[in-house]
Structures are given as structure tokens and as C-alpha cells.
């Protein structure tokens, strides 16, 4: 899958990302939202809340809950995907929730839930990373207090080479797929999974490669948020005021 020039099927170098486009605040009715195009992936994320947590028995009097629902739309893949939750989407929902829960200041919203909905409109490998990337932008767009924005990428191994950001073909016929999410500033790992086999050395190499790419994605995420709220001028004077 890698030619004599070291280029991959779609012409990328081993440490090259697919083109990524991020847009924040695309949905009017949600509290926060984001849309990500990542190569041929198209992912939409919406955030509601913090809002009263239902069912009530899930409420935590000490902190809020971050609940994510990852869903692939029926037409997101070439063979119609049977709608509804399955083992894979339940797993992805869980890992995204857990990654986000760590960065949100949940203790500021006791007894509430923050609901994140990730919808995959078009899939081409790496949707959990695209989903998490979109979800964290949507959370920030919803004005939720959080430690940092979370960038996420996948690294993998094809033809005995460690490469960045697998696409569909590479994912299907490659040797390993390692999705990861980090906090760039601190280097904390929020998500690290591995499907396939790699040596320890390769994993270390892959991790470093992913870490570097995460920085790029992080910048894109920040840029998307800043574009959304491009400040034309400045005001601060007209602040303050009580009722009536």
C-alpha cells in the first residue's frame, strides 16, 4: 500500500493528515455544535446542556454527567448501516463520554447532564477521532467550562510502516489502528486504543507521530471557534446592569 516513493494510496506521506475542515456553531437549536470534514468523513456534533438530568437516578449531587451518543446514519457507509445502537457505537459513545468528562469542569454543574450527540453523516475510517474532535469544539461552543479542547487522531501500521491517519482502505487492509486523544498542553492521554499488532517501539513511534498531528488539529479547532465569534471591534464599556 506504500509505493517506491514512500507515498500512500491517496498520495499522502506517512506523517500526513487528510485535509480537515472544522466549523463551529452550525446548528441553531442546539446549545453548541460543530461540523467536521476529515478527508471523506463528515461528522456533526451537537451539545445540549447542562440541563436537568433524566432519568433522575443517574443524577450525581456532586457533579454533572457528560453523556455522549455516537451514531452512524444509515447512509454513512456504502452498505446501508442498520440504524440503532450496536456494540461498536455503544463502545464509541462510552469512550468519547469518558474522554470529555475528564476535561469538563463537571463539579460546577451538580445534578445535571451535558448531552453530546455525534452523528456520522459519511464514514471513511477514523470517525471516532473526528467525532471526538467535533464534540470538543461543540462543547466549547456551548460555553461549557472545560480544561482544554481535545484533539484526536488515529495512527496505524500498514505494510510494516507506521503511518498517520488511516483512511478506509488502509484501515481495512492494514496491520494496526491506534486512535488517540490527548491534551496537547499537558500531554495527558484521554483516549488510546489499539486494534491489531505493533511492537512497543512502533507504538512509541506512532504515539509521537499522533502527538505532533494533534497539535495541528488543536490549532484548527481553536481557529474554528475564533472564526465563529470573530470580533469586529471592541466593547466593554457598555457592560453591567441590573434588572428592569
Amino acid at each position, binding site marked *: 500500500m506504500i509505493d517506491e516513493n514512500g507515498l500512500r494510496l491517496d498520495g499522502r506521506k506517512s506523517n500526513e493528515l487528510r485535509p480537515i475542515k472544522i466549523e463551529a456553531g452550525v446548528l441553531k437549536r442546539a446549545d453548541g455544535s460543530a461540523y467536521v470534514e476529515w478527508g471523506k468523513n463528515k461528522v456533526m456534533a451537537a451539545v445540549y446542556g447542562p440541563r436537568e438530568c433524566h432519568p433522575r437516578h443517574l443524577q450525581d449531587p456532586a457533579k454533572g454527567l457528560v453523556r455522549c451518543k455516537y451514531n452512524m446514519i444509515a447512509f454513512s457507509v456504502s452498505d446501508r448501516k442498520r440504524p440503532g445502537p450496536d456494540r461498536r457505537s455503544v463502545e464509541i459513545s462510552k469512550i468519547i463520554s469518558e474522554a470529555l468528562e475528564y476535561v469538563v469542569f463537571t463539579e460546577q454543574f451538580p445534578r445535571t447532564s451535558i448531552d453530546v450527540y455525534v452523528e456520522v453523516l459519511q464514514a471513511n475510517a477514523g470517525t471516532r477521532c473526528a467525532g471526538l474532535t467535533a464534540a470538543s469544539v461543540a462543547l466549547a461552543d456551548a460555553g461549557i*467550562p472545560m*480544561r482544554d479542547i481535545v484533539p484526536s487522531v488515529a495512527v496505524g501500521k500498514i505494510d510494516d510502516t507506521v503511518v498517520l491517519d488511516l483512511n478506509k482502505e488502509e484501515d481495512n487492509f492494514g496491520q494496526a489502528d491506534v486512535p488517540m486523544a490527548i491534551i496537547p498542553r499537558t500531554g495527558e492521554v484521554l483516549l488510546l486504543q489499539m486494534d491489531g499488532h505493533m511492537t512497543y517501539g512502533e507504538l512509541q513511534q506512532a504515539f509521537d507521530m499522533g502527538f505532533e498531528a494533534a497539535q495541528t488539529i488543536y490549532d484548527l479547532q481553536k481557529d474554528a471557534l475564533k472564526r465563529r465569534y470573530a470580533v469586529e471591534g471592541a466593547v466593554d464599556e457598555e457592560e453591567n446592569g441590573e434588572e428592569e
Partner: protein
Amino acid sequence: MTNDNINREVQRPVRELVVPGDLLDTGKLKAGNGTYVVDGNIYASQLGIKSVRSNYVNVIPLGGRYIPHQGDTVIGKVIDLGPSNWLVDINSPYPAPLHVNEVPWRVEFGDTARYLYVGDVLLSKILIVDETKRVQVTMKEPGLRKLQGGQIIDISHSKVPRVIGKGGSMIQMIKSYTNCRIFVGQNGRIWLDGEIDNIVYAIRAIRMIEEEAQTMRLTERVKEYLESVFGSE
């Protein structure tokens, strides 16, 4: 170009859009709202605008849900009744009970429906918020009452200070042009009453403020709009 003008340019706080995780300060200032501290460094925890005021760095949020604070005046909607309390929706993640002791009337046990019913709208005040964010509202203060007639619109609570304007200048202007009675709740609900056409103009002006909240010369532009409708006073 007067000296005065130049001075204002210099003194105006730097307006910088920050996203969660942005470094705001490395220890000279104190951490204010919308920030958090790690190893003495202050970072933004919310998407918003950085503002430095009397040695505190704050992030003025651009969105987010309304979180009740003690003493806020809010516009609430009755959503449920109990024998000794009403449940009021204050447009926040937390429902707010209004106890019979906190209304200006003497209410018999079980007789709550006679005074306020589901769907009624109140001007009320947040009495207390405890550490698990349990909220109570009160109506036992002058000016707090049931609101009858009129219309309600919702805006983002972060835009409320803009709608009110410095020292109430913005809202005062809208009121005097449109001749409406207007109450702005801290929770982003606005109640308006008056001539129906004037209400529509007032709502348009408020929507304009909401959309252009972060731009300059807002008061002047709203004034221009109102003058285009009502002619200059």
C-alpha cells in the same frame, strides 16, 4: 482627534477572544470568573472575551446556560404546584421552588392554585443557591409580582448586560422610544408590554443587540434604528 480620544483608545481593556485552555496570565493577576489555575498559571475555562479588571482576569462568556446566583432578578414560569409551593422554571438547569412563605399573600395549605397557576409568569428574585445548586426564589420584595399580559422573549443570558447597557442606558432608550414596559431578567427572559406595533419594534431592537452584541457603537446603531422607526425625539 482630541487628546481625550487617544487616551480612551489606550485605556480601553484589550479585547481578546479566548478559548478553553488558553493561557491568560502567568501569576501577576488573580484568577476571576471563567478561569482556572494550574501551577500558578491562569487559563481560560470558557469560550469568551478576556477582560482584566482591578487585578482580576475574567473571561466574559459568549454563551452557555444560565446558572442562578443569589440576588438575581429573574423572570420565571410556573410549571407545577405543590400544597405549599410552586415550581418555577427559571430557564436554568435547575428548577426553582417558590415557597408560600416567600409570596406577598397569605396562602392556606393546599390552596396554592388560587394565587398562581401553571403557566403564570413571575418577576422573582433568587433567594438562595446552596452548594449543590438547590435554588429557591422569592417574591417578597418590592417590585416583584406576577406579570399579566405582554409578551416574553428569550435571549442568551450572556447578552443581558448588553441589552441593559451601561447604567441601563440601552434599555432606557428602547423604553422611551417604544413606550413599552420592559423587564429584563438575568436569566435571559425579557417581558414586554405596550402597543403591539411598538412591542414588535422593541423586540427587533433587542434581537439586533443580541446579534451584534460584540460589536462597537452598538448603542448608536440601535438608536439609529429606533429613530428610523419613530423619528428623532
